[in-house]
C-alpha cells in the first residue's frame, strides 16, 4: 500500500507541472460538477468534466511506462523485498484507478441528462475496455520506447494486429469484439506477458536491453577511449555515447516504420477510402520530428555544463560548439524525415498538390 501511495505521488504530484495540472483539473472537475456551467452539457465535444479529468490523468496514464522504467533501474529501491512485484502491482493499480476515474467522468457528465441519454452498462463497459486497452498499450509502449524506439514500434504493430486480423477474417462485428471480450483478453494477455518478462529479466538497463554484458561494454569503452580525439570525446559526452548519424538513423527508422504502419492499416482496412486523411495523418506524424530534435538539444544543453572546464572553452565558445553539434543532429534527424516526406509526396499523393510550405 505504501508503494501504491508513493507511486500515486510520483504520478500526480512529483513535478511542478504535474501539481499544476492536478490542481487545475480538480478545479475544472469541481466547477463542472457543482456550478452547472452552461457549456458543460452532454453532447458537447469537450465538456468541462472531461477536460478536468483528462488534465489530472493524462500524465500517469500516458507516461507511466517511462516512470516505471526509471524506477526499475539499479538503485536502492530495488533492495526492498519484492520491489519489482510491488512496483508492477502499484503501476497496474494506478492504471486501473485512472481508467475508473475516466469512466466516472461519463457518469458525472450525464448525471443530469434524461435517462434515455445516459450510457447504459454495456456502453460503460465498452469505454472501460477501450480506455484500459489504450492505457495498457501506452504504458508498455512508452516503457519500451523510453529505451529503444524501434521496440516501441514493434509494440504498436502488435497492438494493431488483432484489428487487422479480425478485418481480414471478415468478421462483421469487429468493433464490438475489440471493445468487448477480445479487447479485455488482449489487455490481460499483454499485462501477463509484460509481467512475466518484467519479473524474470535480470536487469532493466541499457546493456541488458542491447543484449551485451556490462563487462563487455566497459572493456569496449576503455579500448575505444584511448583512440578518441578530444573533440570526439566531447561529442560523445554531449550526445550520450552516440553519434548524429546513429541518432538520425534510429529516429528515421522509427518514423518510416510508423508511417508504413499507418499506410498499411489504411490500405488493409479501407483501400477505397479517401487518401487525403491518411496522407494528413502521415505528414502529421513526420512533423513530430520537432519533438525529437527538441529532446536531443535539451539533452545537449543539460550535458554541456560538464564540458565547461574540462573542454577548456569559454561559455560563448562552448555555446558555439554546442550549437554546431546541435545543428549536425538536427540535420541528421531532419534528413530522413524529409526524405520520407518527399517519397510520400511523390508516391502516396499523386495529383494532390501539397504546397511546398509544408516542408518548411
Amino acid at each position, binding site marked *: 500500500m505504501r508503494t501504491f501511495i508513493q507511486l500515486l505521488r510520483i504520478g500526480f504530484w512529483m513535478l511542478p507541472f504535474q501539481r499544476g495540472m492536478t490542481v487545475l483539473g480538480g478545479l475544472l472537475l469541481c466547477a463542472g460538477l457543482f456550478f452547472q456551467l452552461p457549456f458543460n452539457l452532454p453532447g458537447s465535444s469537450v465538456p468541462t468534466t472531461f477536460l478536468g479529468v483528462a488534465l489530472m490523468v493524462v500524465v500517469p496514464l500516458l507516461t507511466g511506462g517511462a516512470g516505471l522504467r526509471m524506477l526499475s533501474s539499479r538503485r536502492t529501491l530495488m533492495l526492498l523485498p519484492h520491489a519489482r512485484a510491488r512496483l508492477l502491482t502499484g503501476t497496474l493499480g494506478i492504471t486501473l484507478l485512472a481508467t475508473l476515474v475516466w469512466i466516472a467522468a461519463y457518469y458525472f457528465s450525464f448525471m443530469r441528462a434524461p435517462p434515455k441519454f445516459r450510457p447504459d452498462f454495456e456502453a460503460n463497459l465498452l469505454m472501460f475496455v477501450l480506455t484500459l486497452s489504450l492505457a495498457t498499450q501506452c504504458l508498455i509502449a512508452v516503457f519500451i520506447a523510453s529505451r529503444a524506439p524501434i521496440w516501441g514500434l514493434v509494440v504498436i504493430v502488435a497492438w494493431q494486429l488483432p484489428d487487422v486480423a479480425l478485418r481480414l477474417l471478415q468478421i462483421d462485428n469487429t468493433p464490438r469484439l475489440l471493445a468487448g471480450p477480445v479487447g479485455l483478453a488482449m489487455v490481460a494477455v499483454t499485462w501477463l506477458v509484460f509481467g512475466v518478462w518484467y519479473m524474470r529479466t535480470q536487469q532493466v538497463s541499457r546493456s541488458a536491453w542491447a543484449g551485451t554484458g556490462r563487462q563487455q561494454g566497459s572493456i569496449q569503452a576503455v579500448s575505444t577511449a584511448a583512440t578518441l580525439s578530444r573533440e570526439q570525446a566531447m561529442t560523445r559526452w554531449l550526445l550520450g555515447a552516440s553519434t548524429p548519424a546513429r541518432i538520425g538513423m534510429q529516429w528515421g527508422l522509427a518514423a518510416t516504420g510508423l508511417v508504413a504502419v499507418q499506410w498499411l492499416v489504411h490500405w488493409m482496412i479501407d483501400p477505397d477510402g479517401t487518401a487525403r486523411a491518411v496522407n494528413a495523418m502521415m505528414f502529421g506524424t513526420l512533423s513530430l520530428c*520537432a519533438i525529437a530534435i527538441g529532446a536531443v538539444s535539451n539533452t545537449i544543453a543539460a550535458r554541456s555544463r560538464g564540458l565547461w572546464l574540462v573542454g577548456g572553452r569559454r561559455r560563448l565558445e562552448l*555555446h558555439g560548439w554546442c550549437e554546431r553539434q546541435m545543428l549536425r543532429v538536427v540535420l541528421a534527424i531532419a534528413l530522413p*524525415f524529409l526524405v520520407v516526406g518527399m517519397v510520400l509526396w511523390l508516391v502516396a499523393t499523386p495529383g494532390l498538390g501539397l504546397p511546398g510550405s509544408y516542408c*518548411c
Partner: protein
Amino acid sequence: MIMPGLAAAWFGLMQQHQRSLLDPLAVLCVAAGWYYGLAQPLFTGSTQPHWEIVAAQFALVVWLREVALVRWRGADWRRAQP
C-alpha cells in the same frame, strides 16, 4: 516541418542554467506555429501555401537563438555548482 524542428532545437539549447516566463511563451509559439503552419492545413486539406506563417516561424527561430545566446552569455557557473 523544418522550422518547428529548428525552433524546438534552439528552445532546447536555451534551457541552460536559467529559466523564465519566456519558456512557456516560447513553447506556445512553437506549438502555435506547428498547428497553424502544418496540422490545421493538413487537417483541412488546404493546398494554399501559408508563407506568412513560415516567415513568422523563421522569426521565432531567430528570436529563440538570440535568447539562447543571451542566456549562455549570462550563465553564472560556479565550480562547486552541481
